[in-house]
């Protein structure tokens, strides 16, 4: 059963192409007085309002901000994997990203918030991989 997909646009396509190539990419504001990283992909910098953004390879590193073990997915295509961990990650570069925790075996929840993670690229739908995160 096909999973829900992002709608690809000229704004976000580089992110999803990066996932297929095994690389986490982020936009970065090209304004010399800003230079902050941006996610989710946007048409302008939400920090300074600038209209010029470029794409850069990102470290793929971050820390867990919060987590939830999801038992009732919002779409039936995820039922075979449930329960699984839905997480919020503060990327090393600054932005907040939502994803999944890729773990072998049970997860130690105590102290999970603040743990370091790194991106791994997993199959999603045919022709599209997504970035999940694994504990470092």
């Amino acid at each position, binding site marked *: 059963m096909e*999973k*829900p*997909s*992002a*709608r690809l646009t000229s704004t*976000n396509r580089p992110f999803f192409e990066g996932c297929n190539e095994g690389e986490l990419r982020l936009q970065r504001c090209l304004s010399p007085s800003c230079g902050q990283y941006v996610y*989710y992909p946007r048409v302008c910098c*939400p920090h300074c309002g600038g209209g010029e953004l470029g794409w850069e390879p990102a470290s793929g590193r971050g820390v867990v*901000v*919060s*987590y*939830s*073990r*999801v*038992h*009732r*997915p*919002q*779409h039936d295509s*995820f039922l075979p*994997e*449930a*329960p*699984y961990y*839905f997480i*919020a990650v503060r990327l090393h570069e600054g932005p*907040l*990203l*939502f*994803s*999944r925790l890729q773990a072998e075996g049970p997860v130690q929840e105590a102290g999970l*918030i603040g743990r370091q993670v790194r991106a791994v690229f997993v199959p*999603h739908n045919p022709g599209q991989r*997504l970035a*999940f995160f694994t504990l470092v």
Partner: protein
Amino acid sequence: MTGKYADRVAIIGVGQTPYEKRSQKTVHRVLWEALDAALRSAGLPMRRVDGLAVTAFVLPPDNVTTVAEHFGLEPRWLFQGLYGGASGIISMLHAARAIQAGDADVVACLTADVFDVASHMDLMDRFNAPVRDYLGPYGFGGPNGIFALHTRLYMERHGARREDFGKLVIAQRANALLNPNALFKVPLSMNDYLNARLIAEPLRLYDCVLPCTGGDCVILARPDLAPRGGPQVRLLAGGEMHNFPVEDVFALRGGWERFRDRMWAHAGYGPTEMDFVQLYDDYPVMEFVQLEGLGYAPFGGAVELIRKRDTTVRGDLPINTGGGQLSAGQAGASGGMIGVVEAVQQLRGEAGARQLPARRGLVAGYGMVAYGRGLSCSAAVLGLED
């Protein structure tokens, strides 16, 4: 003082349809039934309505303008709520400004939706682009998954236990037993609450609303258009705020703190002078956040407040006196008007078995779930004419 509602805009009618778990009705029919009920309570015919505000998530591809056409109205003022569950209150605030300016005389503020659990989850998977593109593909679990993240953080940062959320939920259920239109009809024990079906940890079944079908409506007008001799309910003050704080999705704060001082100053009353508080209860954690943002407790202090206070209708801090969405049901966008309807019914003396000696109260709204949180906040102070 600029900005307050001159002569205190009147709420002259209130209506709510029966809430249903499954319905064959169209959203237009539910909207109409809510409007009809409110007009009857105002003693006004449909043709007197010259302003219309509508919020309904399943309305597209239609909109407030086509609803006006469907209903045979000729409005000179229109509003459509795009602020999720904050819209019901925001529609009243904007309507009040129109009435204050003379741009409209009689405004119907309407919310309705047609939902069951499956259709609601389907909408939430593609509610807007950030949800569709950056949450949905990861199996986020809908708003349940998002607010599970917030609940986890609130517990870790402020020491809340599940029993604290449970106490509030259980008190609301007790209130709901006095509300004939609430979908939940049996008391809830702490054991039931703590051991209910897992949804998205730490959230279990009774932390989550039941999507349903229903509609809610209030009629706003100049005070001189209120039926003579009837209850004189006034909109005293209010506010809205969006995407706050911009820099932190997980601040566990919402926009209420940005406008609450101005709102209380305009109202001429403070939090402790409210006879009831109708909070937006999509999730218990957001009720705690609202109590803090609206001035009932310092940041993180709602835990102690809820532990100490009795939030049932007979208690010392009545919260969601009709049961709230968690016990009455969430009829989509009407989740943002159910508290207003309950507040107005209390002030009009129409709250039946759950009637309080109420002269004034607070209502709050929240919603437009997008990238990890609801973007919009609202609140209003309502009261009887002094």
